[in-house]
């Protein structure tokens, strides 16, 4: 077998691994009648797509995006100054601070979220958008603090010193040198946080149900109700922002950021 045919075989195999499961989603979303032992649906049509568009899906879509946007903005506002300080200044107990952000991820998620739910209901945030935003931020801050600290570390300190040396204040040096140079990394980190929030399931279900509905929760509900068509459609819709944002992410992510993780 030549190299070329081997490569072809590899591409085909990879394509099958990725696209076969997806194609079953697509087929299911159009299936109106599909019983065993038929290989393909006996009857196809747009019935379920139409049904979905009238139902809760739109609410799940808007709520999900609203939560994701609020989570992203809040995370950025908190993380940019925090990550800059962690990257630049000799903060005492730096490893400890970074560890605290990791801590919620170190335990099994379910007990953490169940406990948080109890707490959030006590302060009257359970079943509300605000509560879901808070529970998302527990995870989002981990991504954001770690990646953005690495991003700011990857901007050489001498670049800021050169600005300060010529008379710039510390803030001006940050604003005119470090921030523009960190922007691609901040965008990458923002996209990660946005996607995380959009796809988050466990916390949203526990804290938000039954009042807050996002796409993953909606999909879960429909699939346990054996409405496989509806679940497939929502899965397909959930994939769209993911694919779009990952393509963007690939443009902005630089390998330097990853190499900085070890040096935080």
């Amino acid at each position: 077998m030549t190299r070329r045919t081997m490569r072809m075989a590899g591409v085909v195999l990879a394509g099958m691994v990725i696209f076969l499961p997806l194609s079953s989603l697509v087929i299911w979303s159009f299936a109106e009648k599909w019983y065993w032992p038929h290989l393909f649906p006996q009857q196809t049509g747009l019935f379920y797509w139409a049904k979905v568009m009238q139902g809760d899906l739109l609410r799940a879509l808007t709520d999900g995006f609203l939560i994701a946007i609020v989570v992203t903005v809040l995370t950025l506002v908190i993380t940019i100054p925090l990550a800059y300080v962690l990257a630049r200044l000799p903060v005492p107990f730096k490893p400890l601070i970074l560890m605290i952000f990791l801590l919620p991820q170190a335990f099994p998620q379910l007990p953490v979220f169940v406990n948080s739910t109890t707490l959030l209901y006590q302060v009257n945030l359970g079943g509300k958008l605000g509560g879901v935003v808070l529970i998302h931020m527990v995870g989002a801050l981990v991504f954001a603090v770690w990646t953005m600290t690495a991003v700011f570390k990857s901007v050489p300190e001498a670049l800021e010193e050169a600005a300060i040396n010529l008379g710039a204040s510390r803030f001006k040096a940050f604003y005119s040198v470090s921030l523009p140079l960190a922007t691609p990394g901040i965008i990458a980190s923002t996209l990660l946080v946005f996607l995380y929030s959009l796809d988050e399931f466990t916390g949203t279900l526990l804290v938000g149900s039954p009042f807050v509905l996002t796409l993953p929760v909606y999909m879960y509900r429909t699939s346990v109700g054996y409405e496989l068509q509806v679940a497939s459609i929502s899965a397909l819709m959930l994939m769209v922002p993911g694919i779009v944002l990952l393509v963007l992410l690939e443009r902005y992510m630089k390998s330097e950021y990853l190499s900085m993780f070890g040096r935080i």
Partner: protein
Amino acid sequence: MVEVRVENVRKMYGKVEALKGASLNFKSGAMTAILGPSGCGKTTLLRSIAGFIQIDEGRVLFGNDDVTELPPQHRGTAMVFQNYALWPHMTIFGNVSYGLRLQKVPEAEIRRRVLKVLELVEIGNLSDVETRKPAALSGGQQQRVALARALVVEPKVLLMDEPLSNLDAKVRQRLRAELRRLQKQVGITAIYVTHDQEEALALADTVVLMNQGQIIQTGTPQDIYLKPGTAFAAEFLGVSNQLEGEVADGKLTIAGQTVSYAGPVRGKAVVIMRASDIQIEDPAATPRPETMALTGILEESLFLGAHYRQYIRVGRIVVMADSADPRPTGAVRLVLPSEKVQVYGQP
């Protein structure tokens, strides 16, 4: 143009004392090179003058102004960094004009001064400096831009932290000569940190030799090179042989061989001989007066481009000697004028 003085400057990093009370005057309008091995405190001293490091003790003065407590923004120094530290997201013009923009200089004057200084540092093509970014330039060109960025604000003091050490040898030599010309032309007080002795000697009006957080010797390049005050200075300033010896009864013993010695040192000593000062003779030749001679076996001869370096075994030690021609291996006599032998007592 201002004289820079540091008085008894001390700096601790944790338990390591980086500067152990350095006092020095940097002459106004002159180029002073701070020379020393890595970790000797030379960069710490430079950064203390720039204000990036808060010193633990002592004072830094620009003329009559005590700037010890002044933050770096307000000191009026300009620094040229080893890795250029140009801002990659700004154009060449943007980089050089940054300092003037901070000073709120009118736009027309910014343009005039930036173009003038870019011409001064011979950046070449001035037509596209407003569109090109530093990454499009070679290392040497980038350092010229960095120098322009520093000079355009007309700083009181120009600080340079190993500005040429990232460049290849040819560019380094050319920029060295240009730096010297520029500094004389502008007449600015300049402080230049380097670990390269050749660079320090070639560039500076005054060379300051540092080791282990202390200033070892200060003088003109000629003074420092020809009359090194300590064994460290002699060793650092050239490819040299550093041999252990012992002085007793007007005799100096090196590797079991005895030569006459009339200097002040007694007891254990360090003997420094420059490889370029040593001549190699046939051992049968008649000895010359006013010279010191050692006999040994020439083991190897390496071609280094400008000269051959011979390795000669004398007892347990190996002595290096440079000559224009290669020599066959075998027994030789090493000869050098007595005044070129530097003997230092061991502390």
